[in-house]
């Protein structure tokens, strides 16, 4: 489209590219904003049902589905207050920083094979990295508000998020290690076929890892019982105590964006991403979606997209369920949970998965036959051949890249 505008209409190229980038960016923005509208509505409904009441019922008909929009309009029309002692510039910009971090990580999140904003081959890493930047928005908001409650919230958030990145990273490394790639699209496609191919069922260690991951993800996006940065019974509203109107809603959008993101990431890493529990697309089209083309590819991808969104939304729902059930931990208990429980467990799981792989024990994918003779059967480390020429590989093998399928792969390399 850019090329068309330049060559046929003779537009000034930098302008065209800027416009195109802005167009794409606003599309993602709409997805996130729309997503958080749905999630906030969902949260109210879920909370209502959990608490034996109905939740919103009036605005927009029977299910109150316009309630969030109405609230959004109310928020838009609210006065944008700024405390007198606040650092004006930082106070204004902090919500956007938090939002941009949550928003930026969506760039690398694939929704189905090939349907991704930017196909980075270190996507897992990128998503976690950008999501981690959300902490700056919170810290700045807390500092700039010139309120002690906000400062408390900010300091808690900083301590908590930094701590939880360690076990979160360890948990993420495990599926990455099994897959042998950091490319989320590839990790997703490697789990195609029956649900036993999901890394959740890869071996007992990954099964536990998933729950550790979920706990850490919960903590890193500040959801109950780890929502200490905004603990309303202690810190009034924590870091966003002084915010009102639209700026406040940006924090909210960031929160719901991150919630979706971590559960989407979890579903790609452990729950097979866009692959359903049964290989439906493969039955219909005879091939896995990643190998299809044209209309069949789109159709299979739409199926996959639905499965993916379903899983991610399920993850978000469980987060809501947890929030409305459990009391809040204390900050020292949160940090203890991180360093005394999550980190050691994740480390043990890491070693466990390595041993499982090295010993060549059967994994989940062996229980039900894999549909395609695709890449899953290849050993992780050698799947992407690091060098085009085979001469470097003997040394690679000599440093311990052995696996059950090493023979086969080496044969290919030699040939």
């Amino acid at each position, binding site marked *: 489209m850019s090329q068309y505008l330049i060559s046929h209409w003779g537009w000034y190229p930098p302008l065209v590219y800027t416009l195109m980038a802005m167009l794409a960016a606003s599309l993602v923005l709409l997805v996130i904003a729309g997503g958080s509208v749905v999630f906030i509505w969902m949260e109210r409904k879920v909370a209502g049902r959990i608490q034996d009441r109905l939740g919103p019922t009036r605005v927009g008909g029977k299910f109150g589905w316009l309630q969030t929009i109405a609230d959004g309009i109310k928020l838009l029309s609210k006065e944008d207050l700024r405390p007198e002692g606040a*650092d004006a510039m*930082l106070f204004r910009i902090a919500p956007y920083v938090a939002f941009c971090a949550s928003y930026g990580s969506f760039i690398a999140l694939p929704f189905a094979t090939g349907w991704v904003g930017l196909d980075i081959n270190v996507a897992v890493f990128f998503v976690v990295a950008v999501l981690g930047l959300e*902490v700056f928005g919170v810290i700045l908001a807390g500092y700039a508000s010139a309120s002690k409650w906000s400062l408390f919230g900010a300091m808690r958030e900083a301590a908590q998020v930094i701590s939880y990145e360690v076990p979160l990273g360890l948990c993420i490394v495990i599926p990455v290690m099994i897959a042998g790639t950091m490319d989320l699209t590839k990790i997703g496609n490697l789990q195609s076929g029956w649900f036993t191919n999901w890394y959740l069922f890869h071996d007992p260690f990954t099964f536990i890892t998933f729950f550790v991951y979920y706990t850490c993800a919960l903590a890193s996006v500040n959801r109950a019982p780890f929502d200490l940065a905004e603990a309303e019974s202690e810190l009034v509203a924590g870091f966003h105590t002084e915010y009102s109107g639209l700026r406040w809603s940006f924090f909210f959008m960031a929160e719901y964006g991150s919630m979706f993101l971590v559960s989407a990431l979890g579903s790609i890493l452990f729950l097979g991403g866009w692959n359903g529990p049964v290989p439906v697309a493969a039955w219909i089209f005879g091939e896995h979606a990643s190998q299809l083309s044209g209309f069949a590819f789109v159709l299979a991808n739409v199926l996959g997209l639905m499965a993916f969104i379903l899983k991610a939304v399920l993850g978000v729902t469980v987060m809501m369920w947890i929030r409305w059930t459990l009391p809040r931990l204390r900050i020292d208990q949160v940090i203890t949970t991180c360093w005394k429980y999550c980190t050691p467990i994740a480390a043990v799981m890491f070693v466990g998965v390595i041993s499982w792989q090295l010993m060549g024990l059967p994994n989940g994918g062996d229980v039900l036959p894999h549909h395609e003779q695709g890449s899953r059967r290849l050993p992780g480390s050698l799947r992407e051949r*690091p060098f085009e020429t085979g001469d470097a590989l003997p040394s690679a093998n000599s440093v311990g890249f052995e696996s059950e399928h090493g023979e086969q792969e080496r044969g290919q390399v030699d040939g």
Partner: protein
Amino acid sequence: MGNRNGGRWMGEINGHTVLFLFFGILTCLFSLAVVFSANVVRMAFYLILALAATSGLHFLAGADFVGTMQLVLYVGGTLVLLVFGVMLTAQNPFISLRTAGGDWIVAALVGGILLVILVPVAFQIGLPPQDAGDIEGLTQREAVASSEPVSVPTATRIGLGLLGVPGDDVSGYLLPFEIISIHLLVVLVGAAYLARAKRKVVVRQESQNIAGS
């Protein structure tokens, strides 16, 4: 350089260029903002933005692993630490420490000289050779002057490089890697030790008596 400034290049102003300009200008702007801002909290904020924009430049240069590392370690780790430090010491008299005018003049002078040295060097080194025949790899260069930021997997090769497996464009770095690992450990211990100042403070103990009874 004039001979390269033809219509041929205009067509190659593309998304890559626009993004480069975006990130490059952001980087320069926020770096300068760090210098000219007096408030230490804002300086930290500008630094965060400058380094985040730098990681964008890394991505554009095809070094996506390094770019992500920059985000994780530098922006997400080091700078959070720095902001922590800023907030721990951010008492009113120290938030904005003014620099004397004389210092500014000297610094500007030194900085200007440095810039005057560096920029021409950048032009000399960075430019492609004028004479196409001079260098053997020219055709290859033409090929790699790519128009779109193509994602090339670098992480695997970097990882192997760090494990000491040399490849065709990477050397083995096992020893430096190990040294840095040890270094990090030493630094961690050292920092933890250093930060523990021996300040003695008296607190009342009633509550513990109560707890014990």
